[in-house]
């Protein structure tokens, strides 16, 4: 059998590159994504002729003849995992069929898997890393591309559901399965043991395979967010928090992407202050010309800040990366500032056009739940402005507001929010009917004043025969208002106490400043003062020999950046 000349040349070059440990060059040579250069196509036809599915041993021996398993003078250990990878690489090229992307995805995943095994081998680790990154990027792109083409993956769902049998197994989607493979690469990068405990080399850069930590982590996060597996994302953040060198040592694109996902994860878990810290850092470090990325960050940064009582400034909303956001968030901020419950509720009503946008960004429920508190605070403040008693410091009479007045305004507002007149006339004016499919979650089912369903028609479960249709929402009562005010006091958003006997809210400590300032402190001041500034998942400082129990001792790095000379005045 004649030796295939192109395969021989190719392997000779690969062997040379491997000896040179030139990772970037290796990645550039190991091309796999069409369109391929003529030389690669020539190589593919040679492989098809000589190395069919039954000639795997011959192919492996061919690889070994160029790339010895053990190199003399190299203490790197075995290269067998890399040789297996090369065999799989040739097979991948041989079998590649762009017409069948699902199959291609499977093969690419298997190829990456083997590449990651080579990444784990000391001999090849750093050299193969660029190839691992490249394969991971392509796999991620292909997985997301396929996820958007249900027509191509439909048969997979059926295949998986038959594999699962009768047991209710959680279906691992194509996207998630890809993420799980890339996560193995991430773990190998993160668990690099070369160098000292900080993982930083003499040039101040992450040492060895650690340079791949955030590249692989960000790909995993992209996929986990795409398939909504936030718990898997949490593991990535947890691992990084424990083992990664500081984020600041990595390139800007990796820092910004990571902080974006971290911020979104914290946001989804209601850690709004921490989300705001991560997202603000992402926004500040994002390239000024990357408008789309800045805008993506800004949507969550603005939402977090509004929830924390900080509104976007007019200057911020004028930036090109904020185009269109003023229309989305402006009316919300106005409603919060005025204490306008009716506008607030109508603006975020599930049937409104805006709600759809907020929902698609996954910020609707947070805005609804968290900002309602701020609207109530503003309504209490407005009640005080309109009808409060200023008190009399001389006679020790505290400024107060009548809860009865607040109740009257609350009822007025809630009625307005429910008013079918305004809502329907608006919808008619817009020339639209409600085309949105009914929400499947019962907590979103808002009783509407429609005709009751015919009772004689259709089956009614005996258990539900006596069920009463849900009442329309009950308007607030004095108890509602008292509990809302008590809750605001508890959260430090109102400063004072409730007098139950007189049904009044009294502001305490208003001797030195105006009752408005004392009784209704700024929301941001209150919330930021008690927020935890540490952001789990974000490594901001070098690892301090925590494996020694975290105590001071020999070899311990002490951060003195915040230390002052003895006797210096406090800042």
């Amino acid at each position: 059998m004649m030796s295939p000349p192109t395969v021989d040349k190719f392997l000779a070059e690969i062997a040379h590159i491997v000896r040179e440990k030139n990772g970037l060059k290796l990645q550039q040579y190991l091309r796999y994504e069409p369109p391929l250069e003529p030389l690669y196509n020539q190589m593919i036809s040679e492989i098809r002729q000589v190395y069919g599915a039954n000639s795997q041993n011959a192919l492996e021996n061919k690889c070994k003849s160029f790339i010895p398993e053990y190199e003399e003078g190299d203490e790197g250990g075995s290269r067998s995992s890399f040789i297996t990878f090369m065999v799989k690489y040739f097979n991948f090229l041989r079998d590649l069929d762009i017409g069948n992307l699902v199959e291609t995805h499977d093969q690419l995943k298997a190829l990456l898997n083997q590449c990651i095994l080579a990444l784990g081998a000391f001999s090849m680790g750093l050299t193969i890393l660029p190839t691992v990154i490249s394969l991971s990027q392509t796999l991620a792109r292909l997985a997301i591309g396929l996820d958007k083409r249900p027509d191509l993956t439909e048969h997979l769902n059926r295949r998986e559901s038959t594999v699962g049998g009768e047991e209710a197994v959680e279906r691992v989607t194509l996207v998630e399965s890809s993420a799980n493979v890339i996560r193995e690469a991430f773990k190998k990068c993160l668990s690099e043991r070369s160098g000292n405990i900080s993982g930083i080399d003499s040039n101040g850069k992450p040492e060895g395979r650690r340079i791949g930590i955030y590249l692989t982590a960000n790909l995993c996060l992209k996929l986990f967010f795409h398939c909504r597996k936030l718990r898997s994302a949490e593991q990535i953040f947890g691992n990084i928090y424990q083992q990664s060198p500081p984020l600041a040592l990595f390139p800007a694109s990796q820092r910004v992407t990571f902080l974006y996902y971290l911020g979104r994860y914290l946001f989804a878990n209601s850690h709004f202050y921490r989300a705001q810290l991560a997202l603000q850092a992402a926004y500040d470090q994002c390239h000024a010309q990357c408008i789309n990325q800045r805008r993506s960050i800004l949507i969550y940064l603005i939402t977090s800040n509004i929830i924390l009582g900080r509104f976007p400034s007019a200057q911020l909303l004028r930036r090109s990366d904020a185009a269109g956001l003023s229309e989305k968030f402006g009316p919300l901020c106005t409603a919060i500032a005025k204490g306008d419950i009716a506008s607030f509720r109508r603006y975020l009503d599930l049937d409104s056009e805006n709600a759809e946008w907020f929902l698609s960004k996954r910020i609707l429920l947070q805005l609804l739940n968290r900002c309602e508190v701020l609207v109530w605070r503003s309504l209490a403040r407005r009640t005080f402005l309109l009808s409060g008693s200023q008190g009399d410091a001389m006679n020790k009479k505290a400024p107060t507001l009548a809860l009865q007045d607040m109740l009257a305004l609350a009822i007025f507002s809630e009625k307005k929010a429910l008013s079918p007149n305004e809502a329907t006339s608006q919808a008619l004016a817009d020339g639209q009917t409600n085309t949105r499919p009914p929400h499947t979650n019962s907590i979103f089912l808002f009783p509407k004043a429609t005709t009751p369903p015919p009772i004689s028609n259709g089956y009614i479960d005996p258990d539900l025969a006596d069920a009463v249709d849900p009442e329309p929402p009950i308007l607030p009562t004095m108890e509602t208002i008292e509990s809302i005010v008590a809750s605001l006091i508890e959260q430090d958003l109102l400063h004072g106490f409730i007098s139950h006997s007189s049904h009044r809210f009294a502001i305490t400590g208003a001797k030195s400043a105006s009752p408005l300032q004392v009784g209704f402190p700024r929301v941001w001041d209150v919330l930021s003062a008690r927020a935890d500034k540490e952001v789990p998942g974000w490594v901001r400082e070098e690892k301090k020999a925590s494996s020694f129990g975290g105590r001071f001792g020999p070899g311990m790095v002490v951060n003195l950046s915040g230390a002052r000379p003895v006797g210096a005045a406090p800042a």
Partner: protein
Amino acid sequence: MSGATDGSGPTTKATASDSTDSSILKDQQKPAAALEEDDEFEDFPVDDWAPEDSEVPPGSEGGTTHLWEESWDDDDTSEDFSKQLKDELAKVKGQK
């Protein structure tokens, strides 16, 4: 793959064709991407940049450090919304 030892030929070729990005795998996702608006966080075109590249130029559109309003309480009681509330309070009190 001209010379087995220098190996410079295919490298330049490979890099050049990388930048054209005319891959089939990539093309596959374009029509679907338009439907989902900007749900995905876009990849950056470059890996690293200097801190000053992140600064929005001052003077032009909104180049400022003042991004957030912490004082937004609305004390104006003369506008429409407050008037409505005032009327409502007067009405309720009149009923008593």
